[in-house]
């Protein structure tokens, strides 16, 4: 404790034990706890030190009446008055003050301590605050990351869900386009999205969607090429933005998904990220869908082809059991039962014969068979086609029959005329014998015998006449027919012979007067001849010409043409260019005869390219 004391009163203090420091000279800034002096001194100190000394205890040393109260009137602090003789009282007061000061000092100390602690606490709090804020922030951040991840997973799940449920629908491709478009739209701006699927040709099927319009185009653009945008611009006829392409992995053909971006708002990285998880799934499902779709088309086409075939078509297993047929038939039944009404396989079955065969399935139905073998699920199957050649067979038979009949007819005709000659002789001679100038010389019995002979010759002549008339009788009934129709009907029967040749037809819907059946026989014969005349694959050309009021239908082949030596006798019977056994050589003769019977004609000539046979009709 510091005491500032007026020198005259120093004696009052013993400071034993020393509890205070005595200062007599007042420095400029002294922090004394106690100031001791007379009223004048105290006033001076206060004037000198100002308010800095206000807090000190003032002890006024005064002996009664001599205190100038005016000096102390304005003192802001209380002061204690001690008589200059009361030494003990002063000591006591100082002790009290000292205790007081000490106490105050202690309080200050504690106060400071408290303040310090509080400050520490505050710092700590601040620190904690900061820490928690950081923690919170990271917490918040991690939460948003989680959400984003969740969203991503959700979107992926949504995608997978969609692709699984929709991949079997009819319009999966279009739905997929729209789905991906919607997804990508959330990630940024772009113009359109599309799929490119390469076809079997060099072109690609392009499916696009721009948020409004779906379109499909077949064009040639190589999506692996860096100039694909240019190619597309050419094809679409408009400027094309940046094309970003991702090839569909493990696709059965060249396929890719592409995005057209105009102002580069959607970065490749973002889409890359999007497709990263989806491309292989998308590819897988789209491929499956495409294959299924194509499979359906193929199956449909196959079924249609299968059903449309005019003959019979079978798929049978090793035991001849029907697996598939182009007509309504209960499956599982053996083909021979179904088709031939047999209880055992047909002896001429191509499978048993190991070759394509021709045989009668049943009476009145002749078929030509073609077969092939294939394995399915490690079981053997056969594909058998039965082409109905009954008609062909009939026509061929008719042709042969009419050739035979014609030969027989000619023979008969010849025979009849030959017989007529001697018969005329006999009849005439009998007539001359029965002339009255002679007959009168003859015996009556001989006369009647001659009469019988005459009757017999007359009867013979009548028989011959009837025969000749009969052989001329088979004249065809004529009607207006459309030549091209008859030709078409004939060509269906000539498929086999025409197989190795090309056929060109250039005729109009011209009507001619003919007998359809006979005309068909003639055409059948002529076209067959033409085909057989060509030893190597060639062409048969059938064309129409109008000349001098007549209609000419020319049948031209690319063979060697007719031998000039036989050309003038070509219409004679038994004239043939074919090998022995192939025909009787009556074909052209008969054809000409049939044409004549229809008031039409047949002409043959050689052209630089081959033989030409012309059917000549009057123009209607």
């Amino acid at each position, binding site marked *: 404790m510091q005491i500032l004391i007026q020198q005259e009163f120093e004696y009052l203090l013993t400071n034993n034990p020393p509890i205070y420091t005595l200062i007599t000279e007042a420095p400029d800034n002294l922090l004394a706890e106690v100031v001791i002096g007379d009223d004048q001194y105290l006033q001076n100190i206060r004037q000198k030190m100002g308010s800095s000394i206000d807090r000190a205890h003032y002890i006024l040393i005064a002996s009664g009446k001599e205190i100038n109260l005016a000096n102390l009137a304005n003192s802001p602090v209380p002061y204690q008055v001690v008589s200059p003789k009361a030494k003990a009282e002063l000591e006591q007061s100082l002790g009290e003050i000292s205790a007081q000061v000490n106490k105050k000092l202690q309080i200050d100390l504690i106060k400071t301590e408290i303040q310090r602690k509080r400050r520490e606490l505050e710092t700590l709090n601040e620190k904690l605050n900061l820490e928690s804020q950081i923690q919170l922030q990271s917490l918040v951040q991690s939460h948003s990351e989680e959400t984003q991840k969740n969203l991503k997973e959700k979107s992926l799940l949504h995608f997978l869900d969609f692709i699984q449920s929709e991949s079997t629908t009819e319009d999966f491709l279009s739905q997929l386009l729209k789905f991906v478009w919607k997804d990508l739209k959330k990630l940024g701006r772009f113009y359109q999205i599309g799929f490119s699927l390469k076809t079997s040709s060099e072109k690609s099927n392009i499916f696009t969607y721009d948020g409004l319009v779906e379109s499909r185009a077949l064009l040639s653009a190589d999506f692996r090429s860096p100039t694909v945008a240019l190619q597309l611009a050419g094809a679409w006829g408009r400027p094309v933005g940046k094309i970003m392409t991702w090839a569909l992995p493990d696709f059965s053909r060249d396929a890719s998904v592409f995005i057209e971006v105009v102002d580069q708002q959607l970065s490749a990285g973002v889409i890359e990220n999007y497709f990263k998880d989806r491309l292989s799934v998308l590819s897988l499902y789209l491929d499956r869908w495409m294959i299924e779709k194509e499979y359906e088309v193929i199956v449909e086409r196959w079924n249609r082809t299968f059903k449309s075939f005019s003959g019979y078509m079978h798929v049978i297993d090793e035991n001849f059991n029907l697996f598939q047929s182009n007509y309504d038939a209960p499956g599982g039944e053996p083909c021979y039962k179904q088709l031939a009404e047999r209880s055992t396989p047909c002896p001429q079955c191509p499978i048993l014969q190991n070759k394509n065969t021709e045989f009668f399935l049943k009476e009145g139905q002749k078929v030509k068979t073609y077969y092939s073998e294939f394995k399915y699920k490690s079981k053997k199957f056969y594909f058998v086609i039965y082409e109905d050649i009954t008609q062909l067979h009939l026509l061929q038979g008719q042709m042969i029959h009419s050739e035979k009949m014609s030969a027989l007819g000619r023979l008969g*005709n010849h025979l009849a*005329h030959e017989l*007529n*000659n*001697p*018969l*005329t*002789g*006999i*009849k*005439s*001679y009998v*007539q*001359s*014998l029965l*002339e009255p*100038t*002679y007959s009168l010389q003859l015996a009556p019995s001989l006369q009647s015998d001659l009469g019988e002979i005459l009757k017999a010759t007359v009867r013979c*002549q009548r028989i011959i006449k009837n025969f000749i008339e009969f052989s001329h009788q088979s004249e065809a009934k004529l009607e207006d027919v459309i030549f091209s129709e008859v030709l078409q009907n004939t060509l269906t029967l000539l498929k086999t012979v025409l197989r190795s040749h090309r056929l060109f037809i250039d005729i109009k819907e011209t009507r001619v007067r003919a007998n359809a059946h006979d005309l068909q026989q003639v055409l059948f014969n002529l076209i067959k001849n033409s085909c057989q005349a060509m030893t190597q694959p060639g062409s048969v050309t059938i064309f129409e010409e109008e000349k001098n009021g007549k209609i000419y239908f020319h049948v031209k082949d690319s063979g060697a043409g007719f031998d000039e030596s036989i050309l003038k006798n070509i219409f004679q019977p038994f004239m043939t260019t074919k090998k022995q056994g192939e025909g009787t050589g009556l074909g052209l003769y008969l054809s000409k005869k049939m044409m004549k019977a229809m008031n039409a004609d047949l002409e043959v000539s050689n052209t630089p390219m081959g033989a030409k046979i012309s059917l000549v009709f009057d123009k209607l």
Partner: protein
Amino acid sequence: MNFLVADDELLIRKSLVRAFQSRGHQCDEAQNGIEALKKISTNTYHAILLDVIMPDKNGYEVLLEMKKNIPVFIISAFTGDDTNISYIQNDPRVKDYIAKPFEHILEVVDQVLGKL
């Protein structure tokens, strides 16, 4: 009158000879084209009855090679196979066609005599 009948059928020749004789005329016979041409060149006939289908030169060949201007009557079956009929038609010596088989032999003779 004197006639020649050229036909490869014996009984036709014989019946014609008898028929002409019964009408009071003479009739020679030839059984093929060569014999007919020989007889035509050596004898004189008022008319010739000529068959078409004959061995050793047929009726057309006879007509072609015959130089004499004698009326000719064609006796034939005319089956329609004869492609040289136009040649016969264009020969002015051919007076008529008589189709075989004859109805009656005397009608044939009368037809010939009527055209002379």
